[in-house]
């Protein structure tokens, strides 16, 4: 088990008052709350801060934590002998235990020992996790497995994190940020309290070709100068396979060509559109003949793409 110095996490001394602990928590919670912070690491930091506060604000958990002595943060350690008696006579294996889970179990065991609040039903904690969803899965619907680490007690009452895998049906038309609730698949309840729920947030993944804007998809479509100038029929990838698209004569760069109904579906099955944005590309190295033809065009064409207003001196 890894030691975490909760006083260090909140930046308070070990003899800090409850008021100081609360103040420090509030300040850090505002800084790292995942709903307000832009820090990519905010969720992990907030969890750490919340875990430290949950331990230090509870006198029983704080006393149990203080009882562990001081260790450098991240150091592997084994709890003192009196802790182990709470779970089983003799020595228990603490190598795969989370400190916060153990403190919670220890404090609960102490309360039960004193028969205080032991009959109060406590609902289990809700868990929240995210699930990456590809555009292909959102387009066609899919089944995917989600593995999370769940808190369980072994026969000695020792809390452990064990992996659990749930099969999830991703419906056609799922949108970014949409949530799925798995009732009673969160943390266990105590004294008759119901287990918490598991919430899964769908996270649409960036696609190498398509960009999603609600139900519409956008794709950059490179065209040769002569395809753009003369018009052509080209193949365009869509989530449903390749389709032919007619490029009108005189297509300029940036023009959006719409492929109706080739975007993402919504929950009712109605599809958005796919927009191909024309992008004029040229060969990076010209063959002798290509050079000759371009030179001939340059000499003969009267086209001037730059029509800036006359510069004033």
């Amino acid at each position, binding site marked *: 088990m890894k030691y975490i110095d909760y006083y260090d996490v909140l930046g308070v001394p070990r003899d800090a008052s409850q008021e100081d602990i609360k103040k420090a928590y509030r300040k850090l919670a505002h800084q790292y709350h995942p709903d307000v912070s832009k820090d990519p690491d905010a969720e992990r930091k907030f969890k750490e801060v919340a875990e430290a506060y949950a331990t230090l604000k509870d006198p029983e958990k704080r006393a149990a934590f203080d009882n562990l002595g001081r260790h450098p943060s991240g150091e592997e350690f084994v709890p003192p002998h009196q802790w182990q008696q709470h779970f089983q006579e003799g020595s228990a294996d603490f190598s795969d235990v989370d400190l916060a889970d153990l403190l919670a179990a220890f404090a609960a065991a102490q309360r039960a020992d004193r028969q205080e609040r032991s009959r109060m039903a406590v609902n289990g904690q809700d868990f929240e996790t995210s699930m990456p969803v590809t555009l292909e899965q959102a387009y066609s619907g899919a089944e995917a497995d989600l593995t999370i680490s769940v808190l369980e007690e072994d026969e000695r009452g020792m809390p452990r994190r064990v992996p659990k895998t749930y099969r999830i049906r991703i419906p056609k038309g799922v949108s970014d940020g949409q949530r799925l609730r798995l009732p009673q698949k969160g943390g266990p309840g105590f004294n008759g309290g119901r287990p918490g729920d598991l919430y899964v947030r769908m996270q649409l993944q960036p696609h190498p070709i398509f960009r999603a804007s609600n139900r519409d998809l956008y794709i950059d479509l490179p065209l040769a100068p002569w395809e753009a100038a003369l018009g052509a029929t080209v193949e365009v990838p869509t989530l449903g396979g390749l389709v032919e698209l007619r490029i009108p004569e005189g297509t300029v760069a940036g023009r959006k060509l719409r492929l109706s109904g080739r975007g993402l579906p919504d*929950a009712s099955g109605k599809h958005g559109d796919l927009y191909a*944005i024309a992008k004029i590309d040229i060969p990076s190295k010209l063959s002798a003949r290509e050079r000759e033809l371009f030179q001939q065009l340059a000499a003969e064409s009267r086209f001037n793409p730059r029509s800036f207003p006359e510069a004033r001196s």
Partner: protein
Amino acid sequence: MTTTITESVWLNTSDICSFDHVIEVSGLSADELHELIDMGIIQPSSSKANALFFRMECIVIARKARQLRDDFELDTRGLALALSLLRKMDELESEIAQLRARLMR
């Protein structure tokens, strides 16, 4: 490792739930939910014989309200302000993402 197939509920706009269900699942009190409805933060989809019904997706806002209440010890007025600012932020972020998708790379 075994894979479990379990009951699951999509928090979407098409399915409906009751007032009591929102309370049970979110952890808000009935008074808090009533106040958030009065302040327009959570909107019922319909009411029948004095019973309020909600779109399933409103559970996401109700849970966020409960989390903010617990994490920052906010009252319902503070919650309403925080939730409207967060909603505004979500709308702007989604608008930026949509505009970015339309730009040629």
